[in-house]
């Protein structure tokens, strides 16, 4: 019997190595795998590259991981959100590397990684600072930038429901980066609000088929995430 469901956060994060690239799902607080990030803090891996749309807020979660100096580099589209104090401090002091990627390019680079596409062209960022040092090329009279696949060693994702095969379904705007990141990492760990019996998730709305997921753990975030 295939059973990807694990019972403890320690088991969920087991084996995450120093130096890993960690893809972290969520947009704002929606679809953000809070419990897995806490568990990663607990787990101890360091020298991490984190890929996440924002660079953390407040002093919890990703911000806490950065404050503990466990994040070497952050790859994101929007580091400067309200309350990203920890990141801004570390960045000012040169204690964290930053790679800014346009949000759509970031999503597509991970989609490419998951789909076996090593590189693709996009018009996004052509002629801007973010295209510096990148190959540009003309197709049909228009200029495009070559972007590379962005692979993760680990993806931390949050879904509404999941089953023992690793199938996931998301809720509303909780989908965001999660399904894309799930395809792009060697080890995808899913925090789900509800474990379902196999076959309970409608096959037409399985958003992440189980083959992209290695571990599933149930975690109810509590209000208002119910």
């Amino acid at each position, binding site marked *: 019997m295939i059973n990807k469901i694990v019972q403890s956060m320690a088991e969920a994060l087991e084996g995450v190595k120093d130096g890993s690239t960690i893809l972290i799902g969520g*947009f*704002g*607080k*929606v*679809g953000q795998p809070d419990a897995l990030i806490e568990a990663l803090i607990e787990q101890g891996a360091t020298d991490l590259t984190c890929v996440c749309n924002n*660079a953390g807020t407040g002093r919890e979660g990703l911000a806490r991981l950065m404050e503990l100096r466990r994040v070497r580099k952050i790859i994101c*589209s*929007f*580091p*400067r*959100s309200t309350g990203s104090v920890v*990141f*801004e401090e570390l*960045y*000012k002091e040169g204690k964290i590397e*930053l790679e*800014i*990627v*346009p*949000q*759509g*390019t970031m*999503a*597509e680079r*991970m*989609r490419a990684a998951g789909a076996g596409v090593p590189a693709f062209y*996009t*018009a*996004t*960022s*052509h*002629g*801007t*600072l*973010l295209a510096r040092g990148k190959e540009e090329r003309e197709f049909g009279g228009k200029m495009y930038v070559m972007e590379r696949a962005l692979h993760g060693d680990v993806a931390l994702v949050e879904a*509404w429901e999941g089953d023992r095969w690793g199938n996931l379904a*998301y*809720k*509303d*705007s*909780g*989908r*965001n*980066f*999660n*399904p*894309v990141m799930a395809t792009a990492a060697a080890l995808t760990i899913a925090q789900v609000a509800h474990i379902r019996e196999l076959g309970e998730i409608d096959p037409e709305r399985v*958003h992440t088929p189980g083959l992209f997921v290695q571990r599933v753990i149930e975690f109810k975030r509590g209000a*208002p*995430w119910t």
Partner: protein
Amino acid sequence: MPFSRDQMAARAASDIPEGWVVNLGVGMPTNIANKVPLDREVIFQSENGVLGIGPAPEPGHENHWLINAGKQLVTLRPGGSYCHHADSFAMIRGGHIDLCVLGGFEVAENGDLANWATSENDTAPAVGGAMDLGAGAKRLWVVMDHTTKDGRPKLVESCGYPLTALGTVHRIYTNLGVFDVEKGLGFVVRDLAPGVSFDEAQANSAAKLHRPA
């Protein structure tokens, strides 16, 4: 009297025909949605994978799983749908969004937009989806004050700030009026706020304004 921010949003809203798929940038552009009557079906897309955004939720009926790109709680209209980030930006990059409205630091007369960083050495500038939207949408409008707080014009011959997208702005709504960007010509005045003269608009711009043909 120049347009208020509310009037700028209303003016932009009134120019959006039924049936368009529209992405509104965070900040001033977001307000445009509130100015489009619900019975004129305009489909608002948000890059976090929401298509068909409805009005703000009524108090007590908030759904915390449902936000827009500005991270405000929203609702979904009947006919709306969800997708993931790569699919959402495939819509944007693939030219399936009829209109994107962004805020701006500067717009140049060739349609260049600068709206994400204030210098090449900006500490950790935040780009979000602006470059994707700027390069991908079928039409790009900008809503912004005509000048900075200290009076510096934001309609310019060429952008001094780092660029977001090249040559893609079609129209600008400011507190002084509505301006089209016409290829090979530059800024064309489409409309002026009540009591604002052409000369006043010109005096507040750092590029030539043209009268409509």
